[in-house]
């Protein structure tokens, strides 16, 4: 993609619609906050020296012992909720982006070899896709985590297993359309190896439909990770994501300390909505049939 095309894309697609522009700015802000969490957060909520139990369960806007104001309140341990959210955002985004990238890459690769080799490879991969798709993702993830136990890398693995299948299917059908074209035949006649053809020619021409889905995959992964962590089978308590923060605060919801659970949840929902607004717009833009209908 040339520079001017990228510029056009941002001008027409992202900033051409106020909701999308807002969502995009939101996503960028969330990413920056997650990236610079230790600098931005008022305190390190997991440094026992920095928190005091005397500051426990302060409502949003009340001031701590040292005089600073806790805008989002504190939890039962005296941790500043704003800080736990900023650190939690970091874990949520890290898990979701890692899992989405790896899961999508695996799906693309399997889709490509499935389309290129056909035959036995194709039927094995596609049968695996069928089996995977006949179970809801959350059930597979629960199954895996019940067998493996908690952990950041285990959640990532469970999410990857939930992600790859449909991407393999989409890539395969895009690649099947490409394989019949003449340049593929030319590449084969030129004596390139199967790997070279797949990576150099088939890959760039078949990944568009899946790449367009990537923002949606990431927001789905964020929600899935939050759900698993809320259920208590996701990230460990030492590395709380947004879902884990909501779960911890949930115990206090009925006693009136609503902010411990609700504020991380609001951040989670705003994050997912921001990504989805941008994702929807990109998908519409990429699909001429939809574009015609909505614009």
């Amino acid at each position, binding site marked *: 993609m040339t520079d001017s095309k990228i510029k056009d894309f941002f001008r027409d697609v992202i900033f051409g619609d106020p909701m999308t522009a807002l969502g995009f700015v939101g996503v960028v802000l969330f990413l920056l906050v997650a990236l610079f969490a230790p600098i931005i957060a008022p305190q390190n909520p997991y440094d026992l020296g920095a928190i005091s139990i005397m500051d426990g369960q302060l409502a949003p806007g009340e001031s701590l012992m040292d005089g600073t104001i806790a805008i989002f309140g504190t939890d039962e341990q005296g941790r500043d909720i704003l800080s736990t959210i900023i650190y939690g955002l970091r874990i949520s985004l890290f898990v979701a982006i890692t899992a989405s990238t790896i899961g999508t890459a695996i799906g693309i690769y399997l889709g490509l070899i499935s389309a290129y080799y056909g035959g036995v490879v194709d039927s094995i991969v596609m049968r695996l896709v069928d089996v995977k798709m006949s179970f*809801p993702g*959350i059930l597979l993830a629960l199954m895996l*985590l*019940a*067998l493996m136990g908690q952990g950041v890398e285990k959640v990532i693995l469970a999410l990857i297993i939930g992600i790859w299948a449909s991407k393999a299917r989409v890539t395969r059908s895009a690649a099947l359309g490409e394989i019949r074209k003449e340049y593929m035949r030319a590449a084969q006649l030129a004596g390139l190896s199967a790997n070279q053809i797949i990576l150099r020619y088939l890959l760039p021409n078949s990944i568009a439909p899946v790449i367009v889905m990537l923002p949606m995959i990431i927001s789905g992964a964020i929600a899935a990770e*939050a759900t698993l962590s809320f259920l208590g089978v996701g990230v460990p308590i030492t590395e709380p994501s947004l879902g884990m923060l909501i779960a911890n605060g949930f115990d206090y919801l*009925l006693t009136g300390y609503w902010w411990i659970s609700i504020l991380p*949840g609001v951040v989670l929902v705003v994050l997912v909505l921001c990504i989805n607004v941008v994702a929807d717009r990109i998908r519409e833009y990429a699909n001429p049939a939809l574009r015609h209908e909505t614009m």
Partner: protein
Amino acid sequence: MLSFIVNRVAHSLVVAWIISAIVFFGMYVVADPIDSFLPEDATAADEQAFIEAYNLDKPALVQYGSFLIRLVQGDLGISFNHGEPVLDLILDRLPATLELAVIALAFALLIGIPLGIFSGLNPRTKRSKATMFLTTIGYSVPNFWQGIVLILVFAVTLRLLPAGGRGDTATFLGAEWAFLTLDGWRHMALPVINLAIYKICMHTRLARSGTRETKTQEFMTFAKAKGIADQTLIRSHLLPNILIPIVTITGLEFGALIAFSTVTETVFSWPGLGKLLIDSIKLGDQPVVTAYLVLISFMFVTINLIVDVVYALIDPRIRYSAQG
């Protein structure tokens, strides 16, 4: 048709077999079954008896064979925490999950389909666009979070409905059901809404796109030209045509509903299968976890099989493409 059914049954059996192998591998080979399946205060004699009963001193293949035989006989072990056979425990919790799922599904169909048809007939109106916007939100907001907000609004703030539990139950067909008592309905209201929201959004969208596709077809124009009243037109010409995909997806999604009830049951402390699973995972009650996973996967395989066969019965094209 017979060869199609045989083909699908064989496929289902292979999938069920793969699942049993994965669960066996995870529970008996990767993890130590003595650790997993015997309570911590078990004596050496208990351990010896367990090893002999489960053939743990034999090769892995023999162990797998006896695992399969126990599975077929319905012997899924004894729960550590409850001291009861796991199968009894699961059957005991099943009604709570079933009533939640069935009522949520009924709501999803009764609200989603009319909403979708209305929205598909008038896609450019403000109301239709608002409906679509709401379904987008219903889709993107995580289910457990919707439940928490429901509790905050209806239980904590307005104090209209209980925040959790199942309330009074009454006995029917040898099981306890909450839908037979008023108190049960009060407790069921929020979990049912929570479980139904996602499905309502899905059915609205399905019915909407089906309606938009069908209403421009020639038989609709013809029926309209004949002067058939709008009500009849929708009921006897539009509805049957949009119903086929909805029926299939409803079948498949019923399984997903039971899987998702894990989330709803945890949020609302609803004593069903999903809560049993999560509690058992947290307490390390491996026999229950294993049994749940095996049973729910088999249930999925069966549902998929039934949906495939029913779909092939309705739509001959599928029958033939699967054979060819």
